[in-house]
């Protein structure tokens, strides 16, 4: 299976994962600072800032776009519970 790497800038850890993994699943395992609530793209608790590798994440769904818009977030923010890493590497931190 294709591999990818996600780096959590706040704890300095990089995790090699299978392509298609949601960021929140990895964050939870390594105890990064990304916190979550509903995990269903509704509450906006897990908003993260993508520092690098934006293009390596899955496109936001209409629902995610709406939650991000409702929360008035800055550029390059995503929901960790929705964003999947598709390949390459990505660096994130809590927004």
């Amino acid at each position: 299976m294709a591999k990818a790497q996600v780096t959590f800038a706040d704890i300095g850890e990089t995790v090699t994962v299978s392509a298609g993994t949601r960021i929140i699943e990895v964050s939870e395992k390594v105890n990064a600072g990304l916190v979550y609530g509903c995990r269903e793209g509704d509450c906006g608790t897990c908003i993260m800032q993508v520092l690098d590798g934006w293009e390596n994440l899955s496109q936001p769904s209409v629902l995610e776009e709406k939650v991000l818009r409702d929360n008035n977030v800055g550029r390059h923010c995503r929901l960790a519970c929705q964003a999947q890493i598709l390949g390459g590497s990505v660096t994130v931190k809590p927004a």
Partner: protein
Amino acid sequence: MTAQAQRPINVAQTRDAVPISSRVHWIGALDPTLRTFDIILKTANGTTYNAYLVRGQDGVAVIDTVKEKFSDEFFQRLESVANYDDIRVIVLNHLEPDHTGALPELMRRAPHARLYISHKAQRMLKGLLKQESFDFTPVTTNDTVSLGDCTLRFLNTPYLHWPDTQCTYLEEEAILFSGDAFGCHFCDPRLFNDLVGDFRFSFEYYYAHIMRPFREHVLAALELIEPLHLKIIAPTHGPILRDQPARYVARFRELTEPRLKKESTDKTLLVFYLSSYGNTAKMAEAVYAGASEIEGVRVSLYDLEGGAVEPFVDLIEDAEGIALGTPTINGDATKAMWDLLSSLVVINLQGKVGAVFGSYGWSGEAVGMLEDRLRGLKVRVPVPGIRVKLIPTEEELEACRQFGRQLAEIMTDKQKPKVIDFEDL
């Protein structure tokens, strides 16, 4: 301040609106018999649900409403100074039910009104009104709405104390409608801070339980509020602050300062333990000794059996890390440890490092339970906890020392960047 406004008014004897300035009336409700608010807050003499009406040349704005069961009082006061057809603007500074209980009925009665809420309030509004479509305008800092000769300016102040919270500033009157900020649960029918009884304890108690967990957000809000010229602060609970309002802003600034001044720039690791036969105590001493070897970390060791919880909460608020040691008794962690953890809800723990260790006799569930609780409190638990069956051996104590070193290194960013495989987690 006008002579009329200075005259004591007993709101309990009337259902009329109360003028607080030339353009603004209080149209809230009193709840003097309430003794517990939201299950957790004691209210020695009740509370108030403050709502306000602003009259401009081009119409009327209603700012916040009241808890549903006090709707009649709210509508009577509103009707004493305005017609529903005049209402063009409804502002909700936040959507907790004690301020939005009368909203659905108000929207029904005021067909020309438009709703102004923060961006984060939109999804809450949907839950509140149980309608798929409704008209509203989401606003953020420096957005304005005009009533002709007066302007309402919005300040986005999230987490004071819900994510959707905002304040609204009436520029021409220098009145800040502050939502729950600068409020308190204190009911006095004389309404104004220069007339009511001594409410300092309520103000401080309210801050400690409602605002303290969101200290960083309070500081961000103060950056927006401190530059404002303020004649009156009109919060959603408790007295209207017309006498020296800036003092209350300054007090918020003081209350956001750390309770205990740090004595050095080192990172702080606090090791708490409880021990029935001295085994968890030995582990705690080893964790303490290991962490103390790392430069840049100041480590303290406390036997929870000998301490009151409150001072520890203050210490933890300003520490970067906590390590908790507990034996397992009847398949559970010790009560004093749970008491400490349950007391931490009044502070913000996000981003702190946590760790757990403990000796056990039979099953040893306590360590995992406390780790789960720490994660629930948004504490990072980067090092797996250590469990020792009964009396720790020298090797096990060395593992505890290493555990302490590792924690201290993480706190001082001395650990090397790690690359790990998800499969190994």
